[in-house]
């Protein structure tokens, strides 16, 4: 029962977002560390692929999933807290989504030392990335707080 609650749809997705943003921060930090390395090419995480996977996961979790529950388990909980096939959602986020790549086509200027550094762009991405992580963590915190409220059967 508890694993069903803790592994509810939103929690799974938020966990993936936090995991992705934290890994991406590492890649962006690597780009900054190599800002003066000759021949270094900027690296990125497959953000577009991750967004697609996230969209698919959201769509899947919003689809009616009553069929997935056996008749005896008709949950009185709200749909967001239902047991919506957690293993399937995890499968939408394979490990390849969390591997850094060196995009073959990159915008921006390549300098004389074959490095295509761009501090502004990297810090912009870092700020956005950090805010996304903060968002995911805070919503996750909110969900755990709700759970805490439900467990203790009182508010505050």
């Amino acid at each position: 029962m508890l694993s069903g609650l803790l592994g509810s749809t939103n929690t799974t997705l938020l966990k993936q977002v936090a995991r992705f943003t934290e890994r991406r921060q590492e890649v962006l930090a690597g780009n900054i560390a190599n800002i003066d390395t000759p021949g270094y090419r900027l690296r990125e995480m497959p953000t577009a692929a991750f967004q697609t996977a996230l969209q698919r996961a959201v769509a899947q979790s919003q689809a009616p999933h009553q069929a997935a529950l056996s008749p005896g388990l008709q949950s009185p909980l709200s749909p967001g807290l239902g047991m919506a096939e957690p293993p399937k959602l995890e499968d939408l986020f394979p490990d390849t989504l969390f591997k850094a790549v060196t995009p073959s086509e990159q915008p921006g200027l390549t300098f004389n030392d074959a490095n295509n550094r761009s501090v502004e762009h990297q810090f912009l991405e870092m700020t956005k990335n950090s805010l996304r992580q903060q968002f995911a963590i805070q919503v996750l915190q909110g969900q755990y707080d709700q759970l805490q409220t439900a467990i203790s059967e009182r508010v505050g």
Partner: protein
Amino acid sequence: MFRTLDVSASGLAAQRVRIDTIAGNIAHSHTTQDEQGNPSPFQRRLVVLEAQTDQVSAARGVGVTAKVEVDTQTPPRKVLDPGHPHADADGYVSYPNVNAITEFVNAMEASRAYEANISTMQVTRDMIENTFRLLG
């Protein structure tokens, strides 16, 4: 997440090596004899930065390593000064191949890159603190 701090720290260390090397070059910009006391101009040191390409970083953030090399290519600066004890047969003294302007520009670049790594560490720190808040 803690590996991110290591990556930024490697950047800090590399830029620190650059600054140290530049400081040495400037300090020796007029040194005309070696440790043994023989007339031989100091040769400028330069830092070669390399991305850390190992198994772990192949799919993750890449740190940086710094190696100090000696610039043997740039010729020494010849100054006519026949009275100098290290002057050659023609009266020229070989001064180190250090160009103060190049060194100062490199120093500025290294210092800015150091700051960029510090800022990155701050962002990473904030993210780690966010995560820790989940613990209660």
